[in-house]
């Protein structure tokens, strides 16, 4: 029997699930920690050699570390079009390769 589903009627159908899965969350935390580790290594190396870099200082001044972040900020992002202004971080284009840690002021 023919069951009209959106993929049969329209052909290609790609959907991003509403929820982010547990393994995706685990990998997200791993990536956040790896970025923290890179920044720490760079900062320690600069200090040992008596240098400082603006980009590193700015990162420490503005960005929370993985363990300081709230689950809300790790797995969701602000979106003005969304109900309650939050959507899953996996909706963000290239979300596995960009740093998205802080919210706009007031959110």
């Amino acid at each position, binding site marked *: 029997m023919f069951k009209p589903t959106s993929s049969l009627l329209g052909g290609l159908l790609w959907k991003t699930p509403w929820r982010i899965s547990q393994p995706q969350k685990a990998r997200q935390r791993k990536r956040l920690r790896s970025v923290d580790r890179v*920044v720490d290594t*760079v900062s320690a190396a600069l200090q040992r050699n008596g240098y400082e*870099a*603006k*980009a590193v200082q700015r990162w420490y001044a503005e960005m929370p570390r993985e363990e300081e972040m709230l689950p809300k900020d790790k797995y969701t992002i602000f979106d003005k079009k969304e109900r309650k202004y939050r959507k899953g971080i996996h909706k963000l284009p290239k979300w596995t*390769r960009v740093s998205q840690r802080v919210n706009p002021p007031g959110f």
Partner: protein
Amino acid sequence: MSYFRITLIRSAIGLPRRSSDVLKALGLKRRMGVVFHRVTPSVAGQIMKVKELVEVEEVEKAMTKAELHMSRKPDPGYYVESRA
């Protein structure tokens, strides 16, 4: 005088042009490629631009291409006593 050992872990395909240009400037051409750079603020700034894509270590000495290759080679399991 120490060096950054920078390994490209994730490719910059589909990312803004800026990221691939920074990788090119660092000399990283493919995933798992390794480059060595002196520890300086300018290199640190470059690493910060692509911090999501690379892994960084601080090392005392830069390895040459041949040394890197040898470090990746597995132990052959034999040694040559004398050449015939």
